[in-house]
């Protein structure tokens, strides 16, 4: 109970801590900065341009990796095809020999 009263007392004192507060004064040099900002055009698009550039870089990297992956698969396919053709050619050569042997 005593503890609760103490807490309530602290809360009340804290809530009253802004009583008699004085208005904070702004830096008078702020006007010079405002004038400077009014003289030069606003650069609101800078952030958007940066994010668009980041997205473009990510997109280019993705497209590049897809192309590399696809060309690697095509190469693998081609070498597989060559092997098959060689095997077929070898078996044809073998059959030709058999035929020739047959004639002899």
């Amino acid at each position: 109970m005593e503890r609760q009263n103490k807490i309530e007392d602290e809360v009340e004192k804290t809530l009253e801590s802004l009583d008699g507060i004085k208005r904070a004064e702004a830096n008078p040099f702020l006007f010079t900065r405002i004038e400077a900002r009014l003289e030069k055009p606003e650069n609101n698009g800078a952030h958007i341009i940066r994010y668009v550039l980041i997205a473009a870089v990510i997109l280019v990297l993705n497209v590049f990796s897809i192309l590399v992956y696809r060309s690697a698969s095509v190469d693998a396919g081609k070498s597989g095809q060559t092997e098959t053709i060689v095997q077929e050619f070898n078996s044809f050569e073998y059959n030709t020999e058999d035929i020739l042997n047959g004639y002899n």
Partner: protein
Amino acid sequence: MPDSDIIEQIKSGDSAAFRCLFEEYKDRVYNTSLGILQNVSDAEDTVQDVFVEIFNSIGKFRGDSSPGTWIYRITLNKCFEHIRKSKRKKRFGFMESIFGEKSESLNLPDFNHPGVIMENKERSAVLFRAVDKLNDSQKSAFVLSKIEGLSVKEISSIMNLTESSVESLLHRAKNNLKKLLSDYYNSGL
């Protein structure tokens, strides 16, 4: 010179009038921003954003509300825009670090408002930490009322709410702060 005349002069391209408006409102804009953002550098950035916005959109100001109300509205919008941008920056922190942009923290721990009297500095730092946990509308109402010292009527026109809605917001803000502070002292005492 009344604010409405200053506005008309700015509309006609008088840069001295714009300086005059800045001098009149800079502390109100800064104090409100500081209360919401709890960071000197962020609040200074917001003051610049607010006055650049005022300059660029002064032609659209029709005078339906007072210039002060209009400027406070822009201030609140810019503060919450700043908070949203900082949250976005945190989300893209990894990308930012790759491209070398430094990410600034939105809230520094133990913020000390320069207008708080010395003996209350420690307690007000605890209170500011709790204020930072309030939702946007409760935080706005609390800051405008307690830090900027505006009346319920003034806050209602800035926030475009009825006076009873503002009173209700302030009541809920105070209850939430009480709960947050109770939890804090419960764990600490």
